[in-house]
């Protein structure tokens, strides 16, 4: 099915897209049909800068298991980082 479920957040950072690095302002997270991954549904993340147009996008499509592993790895990395650096 098309789930259309979407989480939208504002972010600060940079991403590397087809035209090189650009500043990121938004991210959307949704579980839906992938464009490329060979799975019926995937956890999809778009890192975006809508102010620079639709092509300012870095996209990933992950299996649910991979997405959870990524989320754990991000949290673990931040936990292990000295607070003085964050």
């Amino acid at each position: 099915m098309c789930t259309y479920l979407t989480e939208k957040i504002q972010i600060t950072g940079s991403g590397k897209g087809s035209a090189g690095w650009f500043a990121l302002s938004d991210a959307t997270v949704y579980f839906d049909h992938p464009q490329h991954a060979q799975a019926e549904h995937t956890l999809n993340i778009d890192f975006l800068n809508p102010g620079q147009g639709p092509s300012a996008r870095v996209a990933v499509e992950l299996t649910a298991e991979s997405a959870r592993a990524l989320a754990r790895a991000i949290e673990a990395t931040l936990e292990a980082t000295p607070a003085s650096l964050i």
Partner: protein
Amino acid sequence: MKDALMAGTISITGHGGDEIEAYLARPVDPGSPFGSVVVIHHMPGYDAETQEIARRFAANGYAALMPNLYYREAPGASPDDAAAAVRALGGVPDERLVGDVAGAAAHLRALDGANGKVGVIGYCSGGRQSFLAACSLQLEAAVDCYGAFIISPPPEGMPLKVQPIIGLAKDLSCPLLGLFGADDKNPAPAETQELAKELSALGKTHEFHTYDGAGHAFFAVNRPSYRVEAANDGWQRIWEFFGRYLAS
């Protein structure tokens, strides 16, 4: 060479007089007047696989025209980037869709060699939009390939800004072919049965097929949802249906 075809990107006048991109595939010299089909792309956008579908219609003797429904938000963007942008905005407004299909149908009717008969076919979100177009415009045939949210609204919390359109069924202007997967959740078989019941009650000509072992997007050859048996039979139904209502 009766099977020669030509295909490429053109500009057409869509809803509100907007110039939008569209992909035209048509027979070059079929030897007799040909019918036409407006192809409505799926939610992932105006992509290479749907352009291939348009060429398939041309190879079978029809002129096919696929408007880029996401052109306004993302001119020149790749289909997946455009789809992501429109998805985040909640999809294509119904009124605009109808205007774009109307523009495509007018373009097709004006082609040299056209017999004046125009059908519509759509996949995924385009399935609902095909039904919407057929209830809003005078067309000769319509095909709904697993279109959701005709009967039921999207679940709460979804950004998709569409509403059920079963109330438009009384205005359906042409025969409707529905091709669905028994394992699909949107539309679920219970919903397509309800649609069939409503069309029967209204005396509207329709023909629905629901394939066991198939879910959503079983025509999509580049996705794991592809189901060869359902797709092969579905294509056969499409040729019979359009042959009956669109061919000269």
